[in-house]
């Protein structure tokens, strides 16, 4: 019987040859990821209470990213507890302050096609860019998983989204997701979205990760993209072992999708989501001129190396307007390292960017860069719910790194294509 990729993964994980959408099944987990917010802080006492041990340290990855670097004693205590737990329980796949969990996982080649993976964070669907099932869970679920190695799930329906065409100038995967939040809505709970089509085939792995990352904003259990040679090359280049037959993890040709949506992207313009929902989106032109107090490039969604490249393309030879400020929190230590090596960071610094440490930071209203009452932010992050990035009376607009950088140059929301159309004041990129 024909199945979608996610059905096949769940069937394998639950020891069956076929599963039907709607069935409740118990799955053996291939990988559990937790961060400082969903990790030992929450489990340590539970494990003690249950007199239980960690099930399999080879299948657990622990990453600190939410409370880093600690700006107060509470955060410092959470991080200390996390480190102490990792040491005491032999959790050797522990990445402390090295970046945002969803970006760090593929940097170490952890994710492989066909895996049933679980993450203690809502943006865990990001992992689906590597052809695995990866859904988000709260910390009690995660605590149970690290003890038992299994969990229940209701087999989800799959929505297929075919993306065709190519990007117009200054358009990125982020713009596609703001379009999809508007077109498909954010209430796709207990469903998964599978992306395919010519555009997805052409996309880099990092841009594919934006599609699966913001499957969370569609309300989907996960986003998933069938692996191709590019996927396998990426995994191998990052130290993961994967066989060529991993490419066989695909949906059957006549798989039973709940719905199939086709979007031709060539005519898509840069998108902006206005407060207070990612689905409140439209062309940037609708918001050009809006006052912006802070521009923010950060988070699992919008601060990977390619995101910084987009920003640098706009900022090269230009300056952040004195009318605003541009904060950049690279998504991982590796991102920063590469951005130094290829000159990207130099361009950002010369443009007047304020560099922040790597971590979830202001995206979750936690770290450096939170907003005051009445402030307005233009952000490359994933959510702009009321109060998301600080005070409940602050506003957040969402856009791609191109649009955030263009806005920083203009001091108001700007169309990146128009910024690029004006010759930079310092074409060599050097400001004396």
């Amino acid at each position, binding site marked *: 019987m024909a199945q979608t990729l996610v059905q096949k993964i769940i069937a394998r994980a639950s020891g069956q040859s076929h599963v039907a959408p709607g069935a*409740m099944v118990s799955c053996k987990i291939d990988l559990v990821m937790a961060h400082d917010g969903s990790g030992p802080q929450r489990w340590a006492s539970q494990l003690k209470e249950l007199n239980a041990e960690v099930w399999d340290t080879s299948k657990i990855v622990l990453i600190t990213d939410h409370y880093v670097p600690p700006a107060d004693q509470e955060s410092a205590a959470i991080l200390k507890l996390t480190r102490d737990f990792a040491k005491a329980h032999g959790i050797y796949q522990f990445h402390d302050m090295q970046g945002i969990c969803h970006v760090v996982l593929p940097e170490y080649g952890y994710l492989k096609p066909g895996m049933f993976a679980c993450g203690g964070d809502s943006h865990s669907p990001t992992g689906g860019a590597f052809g695995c099932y990866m859904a988000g869970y709260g910390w*009690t*679920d995660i605590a149970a998983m690290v003890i038992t190695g299994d969990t229940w799930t209701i087999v989800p329906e799959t929505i297929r989204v075919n993306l065709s065409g190519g990007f117009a100038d200054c358009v990125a995967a982020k713009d596609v997701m703001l379009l999809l939040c508007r077109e498909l809505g954010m209430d796709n709970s*207990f469903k998964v979205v599978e992306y395919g089509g010519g555009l997805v085939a052409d996309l880099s792995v990092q841009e594919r990760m934006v599609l699966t990352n913001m499957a969370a904003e569609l309300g989907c259990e996960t986003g998933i993209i069938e692996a191709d040679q590019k996927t396998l090359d990426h995994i191998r280049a990052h130290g993961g072992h994967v066989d060529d037959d991993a490419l066989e993890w695909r949906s059957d040709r006549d798989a039973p999708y709940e719905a199939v949506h086709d979007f031709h992207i060539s005519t898509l313009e840069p998108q902006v989501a206005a407060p207070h929902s990612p689905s409140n989106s439209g062309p940037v032109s609708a918001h050009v001129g809006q006052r912006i107090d802070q521009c923010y490039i950060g988070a699992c969604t919008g601060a990977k190396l390619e995101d910084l490249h987009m920003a640098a393309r706009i900022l090269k030879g230009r300056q952040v307007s004195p009318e605003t400020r541009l904060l950049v929190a690279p998504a991982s230590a590796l991102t920063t390292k590469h951005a130094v090596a290829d000159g990207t960071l130099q361009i950002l610094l010369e443009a007047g960017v304020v560099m922040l440490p790597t971590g979830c930071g202001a995206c979750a209203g936690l770290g450096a860069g939170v907003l005051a009452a009445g402030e307005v932010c233009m952000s490359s992050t994933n959510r702009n*719910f009321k109060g*998301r990035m600080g005070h409940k009376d602050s506003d957040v607009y969402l856009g791609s790194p191109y649009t955030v950088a263009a806005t920083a140059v203009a001091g108001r929301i700007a169309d990146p294509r128009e910024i690029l159309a004006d010759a930079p004041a310092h074409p060599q990129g050097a400001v004396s």
Partner: protein
Amino acid sequence: MTGRAWVYGDEINTDLLAPGYCLRLPIEELAPHCLEALDPDFAGGVRQGDIFVAGDNLGLGSAREHAPGALLTLGIKVVLAKSFARIFYRNAINLGLPALFFAHAHEITMGDEMDVDPVAGMVRNVTTGKQYQVNSIPPHLMAIIEDGGLMAHLKKRLAS
């Protein structure tokens, strides 16, 4: 279980239920900030046994368990919504807070007296006298709730 209804609309997200700046705090200290950006009277007004009613996609957003945790801490005993975000739904069950899909949420008015039986799938608006049949919580999830949440449930499983 009977209680007064607190009724809200669609897409009540986790940033509203559990603001980011409160996440480091113990749940007892976070709970008074629940929904402060939407209804400053909510957290202070809830009484033990009250019932939370929402529209579509309740709890969208983060995986933070403080969202149903804050409702539970304030005294909410059951959550009814037209639809739930998946992680919020699981988190509620895992904390022992019954969550029922309720298509007629829009027929409930703030302050209505409600009577809810999650096992039977019965929702009654005592104020209007109208009674609704909803899907009961699946037995294996109800077992988690009846044990007092996933950890207590697991303790039983490990002991047996």
